[in-house]
């Protein structure tokens, strides 16, 4: 027993206790504010230095990527882009060590923004229809999508939390299932036309509706909403049963709204990655072409 404990201790290496004690005293701090905006200051410093350099250093024959200063900026920019791309690996490779993804994200965001300055200065404001400009534009698009991402990350979580009301996604679906079972039983006494409406509502996949519906939360073809409307119009043979079904459909609509709300917010939180990541890959390809062509046509 104690020998097992000793063994574990040996593996733990030194410093775990002090690491843990610091961690146990921690507080919720967002990636934007990480270490009192450390990476914001570093990025600002880097950008300022690049601008000052650009202004002071006499670049011959004119400022562009081919001058020595241009090469310097280009190298920094390339290194940054490669490093920024590695976030995708860091996020998925949970190796030991005192790193945190939050610190990485913080640095990623601010250094990524600094690229606007560094990249732009690297171009020397020479824009044209070529692979070099393609790389530049791709970079700006990646950054633009990143900015959207940060805004989404900073503003949407409270809505996600409020919509959840302590329920997990599985529980939301279970709750819907429970309502559906009640509906099925309650709809038995209804007439043909009304029953069809309920059956249509029950038959519809709660995830039906394309990406647009998912992003906007608007489901114009929602069979539950239609059944509710329809029930008002069709006169009923058994008003008591119809009333019960109405109440249940109302509950179903609310449950669907919660599920759809969750889907919508999550979609808004994720959609930009479908731009950010593929464009990153395209950017890396364009950069490769850009670098090779520069050296090839030296």
């Amino acid at each position, binding site marked *: 027993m*104690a020998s097992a404990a000793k063994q574990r201790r040996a593996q733990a290496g030194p410093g775990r206790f002090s690491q843990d004690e610091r961690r146990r005293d921690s507080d919720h701090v967002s990636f934007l504010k990480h270490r009192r905006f450390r990476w914001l200051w570093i990025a600002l410093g880097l950008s300022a230095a690049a601008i000052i350099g650009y202004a002071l250093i006499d670049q011959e024959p004119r400022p562009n990527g081919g001058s020595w200063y241009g090469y310097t900026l280009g190298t920094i920019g390339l290194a940054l882009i490669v490093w920024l791309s590695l976030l995708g690996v860091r996020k998925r490779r949970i190796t030991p060590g005192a790193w945190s993804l939050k610190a990485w*994200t913080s640095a990623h965001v601010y250094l990524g923004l600094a690229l606007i300055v560094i990249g732009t200065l690297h171009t020397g404001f020479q824009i044209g229809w070529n692979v070099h400009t393609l790389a530049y534009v791709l970079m700006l698009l990646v950054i633009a999508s990143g900015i959207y991402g940060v805004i989404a990350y900073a503003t949407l979580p409270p809505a996600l939390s409020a919509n959840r009301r302590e329920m997990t996604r599985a529980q939301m679906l279970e709750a819907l299932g429970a309502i559906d079972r009640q509906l099925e039983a309650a709809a038995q006494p209804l007439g043909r036309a009304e029953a069809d409406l309920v059956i249509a509502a029950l038959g519809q996949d709660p995830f039906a509706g394309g990406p647009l519906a998912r992003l906007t939360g608007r489901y114009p073809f929602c069979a539950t909403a239609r059944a509710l409307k329809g029930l008002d119009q069709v006169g009923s043979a058994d008003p008591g049963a119809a009333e019960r079904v109405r109440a249940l459909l109302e509950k179903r609509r609310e449950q669907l709204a919660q599920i759809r709300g969750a889907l919508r917010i999550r979609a808004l939180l994720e959609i930009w990655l479908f731009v950010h990541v593929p464009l990153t890959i395209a950017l890396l390809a364009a950069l490769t072409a850009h670098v090779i062509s520069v050296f090839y046509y030296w």
Partner: protein
Amino acid sequence: MYKVAIIGSGPAGISAAAHAAALGMSHVLLEKTDHLSDTIFKYQKGKHVMATPANLVLRSDIAFEAGKRETILGIWNRQLRVENPLVPRHEGPVSDFPVNVKFHAEVKAIRGTGDPIPGSVQQIVTRARDGSRSVKEIQRHAPPYAIELTNGEVVMAENVILAIGTQGNPNRLRCPGADLPHVQYQLDDPTEYVDEHIIVIGTGDAGIENARGLAEDPAQRNTVSILNRGTEFPTAKDANVKALLADHEAGKLTIRFESETKAIEPGWITLATRDGEVRIRCDRVIARIGSAPPRAFVEECGIEFTSEDRGAFPKLSPVFESTAPGIFVIGALAGYPLIKHCMNQGYDVIEFINGNTALKPADEPIIAAKFAGLPGKRSTEEWLEFLRANVSILNGMNPLQMREFMLDSEVRFFRAGEVIFERNAPGSSLFGIASGSVAVEVNPADPSITVPIGTGSIFGEVGLISGRRRGATIRAAEDTIVVEISRLAALKLQSQVPAAKKTIEQISIERQLLQMFGSGLTPEDVAPLVAAARVEEKRAGEVVIAEGAEDKDVFIIRRGSMIVEKQIGGRPVFLSYLPAGSYFGEMAAIDGSARTATVKAAIKSEVIRLPGEGFLALLDKRPALRERALKDMAARRATNAFIESRKDSFSSAVDLYSETAQFLVDNGIGEATDVLLINETLCIGCDNCERACADSHDGLSRLDREAGRTYAHLHVPTSCRHCEHPHCMADCPPNAIKRGPDGEVFIDETCIGCGNCQRNCPYGVIRMDAKPPKKPSLLQWMLFGKGPGPGEAPYAWRKKAAEKEGAQKAKQAIKCDMCSGIDGGPACVRACPTGAAIRVSPDKFLTFTKLTEDVE
């Protein structure tokens, strides 16, 4: 008349019966059900039964090795020549024995039929619900024993082996008609019944699961009702209650609240409800109203237990003989829940009865190994006696108890100057000094200041009692032999030897006082206080000090934790959180005022009550102490005043603080040492924390981010809190749950997958699952899309991959181990991209600033 009657056909009973048969001893094996080994028979189908401890040799005529429940039962049936259609027949050669088994033979009483044994009177203490005690005395009679069965039959035997396990009997209904044949206490297969009106009584987990099972398939057309005595479900798991309520709403079954059974007749049942009596159709009654442990029955047989403690076991001699001569107790009932132990004891006890008292127990090599590296050549017996005689708290043990005790303990030798444990190391074991002495470094700043503890005494009791880290570094002052008593062995010891409990309590109170008030106090100074101190247990929520009251006692928190509240503007406001080791109540004692705040237990706790005058007398004697107390008091006053002042200007912030703190305490933070908290204003729901957890631990996530409660955007996910006194440890047959070097509560590989810990953890953080095969690497996934990618693989993938690899691994209990042994600490926290996930300790987090600070 048999030479021996064996009661209960669990692993202990059948091993004994087979050995008796092998020796040609006249015997009978009495089993109350219609099959062998009811406990194992009731395991989940296909359960992988484990044979731990691995280093213990099996000494039995009956075969046993790790394997499927069906295989093991199949072999045992063959070996005992029993046919049972519900267990697949085992093919292949086995050695079998002419065992005389009697099924449907439930023993209800055992009486000696010889002369009264002079001076041998059994006292049975029963406690009523209101706390009153009554004592019943039974005169013991010599063997032979008359064993009475519930069907009226009587079996006579010279010796009795009691091997009935710890399952006990289901509590029975007591209303008229309770003995009708359609009243049952168990439900094996809910699909067996169709077209019936069924009443399930009891809304614990068992009742709920039965009722839901019966109502599950509408095609069975059962009308199912479940009776709840009140309106709440205090004894059932939350998930079960939710599912039951949903079924009720869906009309699948009916919950009848505030209903009790009045009478049962064929076809009908009468219920007492709030609105009077109702009589409804009822073809079947399934009563699941808990079960009574077998203790009462065992005591009635003349068998004494070691103490009144609920966890106590029968008092036994080295040959398993109880206080009733000729009645032997083995197996789980004797305190040995592992199948291997049970089987070995079955063999041994027959040998003992057969006169072979020189037989060495099968665990001899394990115990001998524990003494191997020690100086001084002693035999195992001599070592055991050496420890028993020298360590004062072990004095009251007998040799059998010492052996059992040693299985969970270690003996260590330390050279002069060697560190035994360090300050702030986690640890809940207790140490006894068998020879030599140790030095306690009472001042962390100056290791040269030490206090000695000598031979025979104990140390480490603070860790044992409070569950908190070691308070001081302790070194061997000379060459020293200590026995390290695991938490479990220490708990057992205290329940077996009341004197040991008393000693530990005394010493711990004295040390706690010395440690807390420090500054040169001597044991003589605190002696009067120690003598007047009383240990009191407090329920969660129980008020220890009430605001405005005039009492003057001072309290020390021995285990658990307290919260301090004050009524401000007509509402209770949370002032602070006090962990174990703190004291409170000193203000009223010192300045004679009324209590300024209410202090109540956050969780089940123990406090030491010190009389206020005694405390004052000590302060008068020691001005340095007085100064310290006044300083502490001033600091507390300042905190309280700060929060009160906020109440006027920032009332809503104080309310938020107060309510959040209460919410966290309600969710187990009060007993946590390290807890995961997610701020939902930051959480983007990416589940990277879960994925990181799975990828750092054999591919299974030990945390469920979404599940769990949320208040004011603070979310407590389903993840281990690493409790100070882990509930999960309470009932683990192989003692697989331990506290590791980083303070984590972890489960080691000896887990047998019984699921007890999962049931015992109040926070639902333990899951039972099989370790999945390895996934293709991250690179392979990123480049070629091979494998399921990062995080826990879906169940279908795991199943398929396991099949491809051959047999699926056994299900074991898995839970958070705080990423012990991994540099950098918990992966969930490191993998959170936004800073939403942190792991904290309650004493650091439950403060006004942390709970009210905004994050963006």
